[in-house]
């Protein structure tokens, strides 16, 4: 699914939090959003998912303005894994994933065998099948994050938005998640802090102070000059001798390495 934004912005109490963002994300693309804390990544994702009131500009899905689509229609197309979402309800892991089916079910229709299968697949995809019956309050941070991702998968979206999904995940599950995303046949927009992970996206956009200041393939966008200007770090690209891929190594600007 193609998603485009046209001078998209959002302000709160007179402060501009996101400003004038023009993005064209192509069908099937994996698009990375990076930027310092508070640069507006989460806000941009929520704007693109149509979750914020009083947005400036507009968002279009396959050429149709998001604002004209009913909520349920949007939820059948876009799933969002937010940065932090918690519950005090005594749900178990599987029930939390089942919520992902909400946009597909009519008010009284019972769960079908297909819904059950989709939920089971989603749990399997994030390696949580063995914890399906565990109560939410007993899950660890990483396990909860994986359940949130499973819920988004169970939503069967055509556009998946992930806000720092690798947070809390151990290295194995981080890599597994990135691999899972790469294998999905959907458009993905993903906010990341790990720039080496961002290197694996098709394209990335850099947010700074609420503006999208650069957008393109990782190698073109993540230049040492930009990294020092925006993230206030020095960086050097190292090459893996085995397969020739590039990795960034960072240091403080003050330590002139």
């Amino acid at each position, binding site marked *: 699914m193609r998603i485009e934004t046209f001078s998209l912005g959002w302000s709160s109490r007179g402060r501009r939090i996101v400003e004038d963002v023009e993005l064209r994300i192509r069908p099937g693309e994996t698009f990375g959003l990076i930027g310092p804390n508070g640069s507006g990544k989460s806000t941009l994702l*929520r704007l693109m*998912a149509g*979750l914020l009131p009083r947005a400036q500009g507009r968002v279009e899905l396959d050429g149709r303005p998001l604002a004209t689509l*009913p*909520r*349920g*229609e*949007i*939820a*059948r197309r*876009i*799933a*969002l894994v*937010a940065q932090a*979402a*918690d*519950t*005090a*309800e*005594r*749900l*178990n892991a*599987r*029930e*939390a994933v*089942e*919520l*992902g089916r*909400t*946009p597909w*079910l009519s*008010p*009284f229709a*019972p*769960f*079908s*065998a297909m819904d*059950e299968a989709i939920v*089971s697949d989603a*749990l399997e995809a994030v390696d949580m*099948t063995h914890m*399906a*019956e565990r109560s939410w*309050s007993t899950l660890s941070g990483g396990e909860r994050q994986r359940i949130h991702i499973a819920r988004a998968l169970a*939503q069967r979206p055509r556009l998946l938005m992930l806000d720092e999904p690798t947070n809390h995940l151990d290295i194995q599950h981080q890599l597994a998640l990135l691999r899972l995303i790469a294998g999905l046949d959907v458009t993905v927009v993903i906010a990341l802090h790990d720039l080496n992970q961002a290197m694996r996206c098709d394209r990335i956009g850099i947010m700074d102070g609420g503006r999208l200041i650069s957008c393109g393939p990782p190698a073109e966008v993540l230049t040492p000059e930009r990294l020092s200007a925006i993230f206030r770090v020095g960086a050097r690209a190292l090459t893996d001798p085995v397969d020739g891929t590039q990795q960034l190594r960072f240091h403080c600007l003050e330590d002139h390495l």
Partner: protein
Amino acid sequence: MSLGSAPTLVRPIRPVLSRGMLGILVLMLAVLAGIVIGETPLSLGQVGRVLANSLWGAGYAVDPVDAGIIWSYRLPRTLVAAACGAGLALAGVVLQALVRNALADPYLLGVSAGASTGAVAVTILGLGGGAIGISSGAFMGAVLAFALVALLARAAGGSPAHMVLAGIAGSQLFNALTSFFIAKSANAEQARGIIFWLLGNLSGVRWPDVWLAVPATALGLVICFRYARALDAFAFGTDAARALGVPVRWVQFVLIGMVTLMTAVMVSIVGAIGFVGLVIPHAARFIVGVRHLRLIPTAALTGAVFMILADIASRMIIPGQVVPIGVVTALVGAPGFALILIRNRRES
């Protein structure tokens, strides 16, 4: 446990039906108990004959006094108790899900207090000059109270905790207003009557009350069912609900409107009864879990049966005297509430 054997929502239709039948059976038994048990002892046979006469003109010979007690007094009273218990329990389920706080109920959020104030304003102050009924007065009071509480909560930050704090402030304010109206305008006789009524009292209930309470609760039940999945989706907050396709504003508007209406109707008939809306939803969750498609009927049924039993107790605890039903529900509800607090603490 294998995955196939662990589904939580798909269950064969038959157990669902038989559980529904069981629930209805329990409710009917409770209603029967509500009719049979009382100061004037009646036998099941007498009750059966009177009901048969009244429902389909069976024409049995019955004592007209007994018939009066059964048909005009105990049956409507029991039916209103059931509707009221179910309605308050539903209100609690809805508010707890929407406010995302285990302590939310119409009593805590000031809705009951507002309804009481409205009812008292109409009866004592003669607000509206007779053009407004007690129920309408209670409804306006309830709406006003909830609006104030919601505004205050929003101004304070809008989190679920703020909602509860604002509710407490609102309850205090409206209870104070009620007391003020009583102190200012009621004579001693009136004041005693009203205070007794405010504590919850089913003594004066007759058939017209049934035709108000039962449809209100039935409507509430249907609306709750309609939005059961939406209520599930609120588990992770309003943003998550919206992302799952729930029209959050609309659902909040419809459900809170319904809760306000239901509470107002109940308060106008029986007074403000606490703890039912708070404790029964938790008891129901304990029985069937948190998914609303199952929680809603269970809570409604549990609330109905509980209230009928509380009404029986209120008539029987002190011979020759009726204890306000709000006192009975509080006596049972307060320990139940303590249990919830303790269990919540263990969870977190």
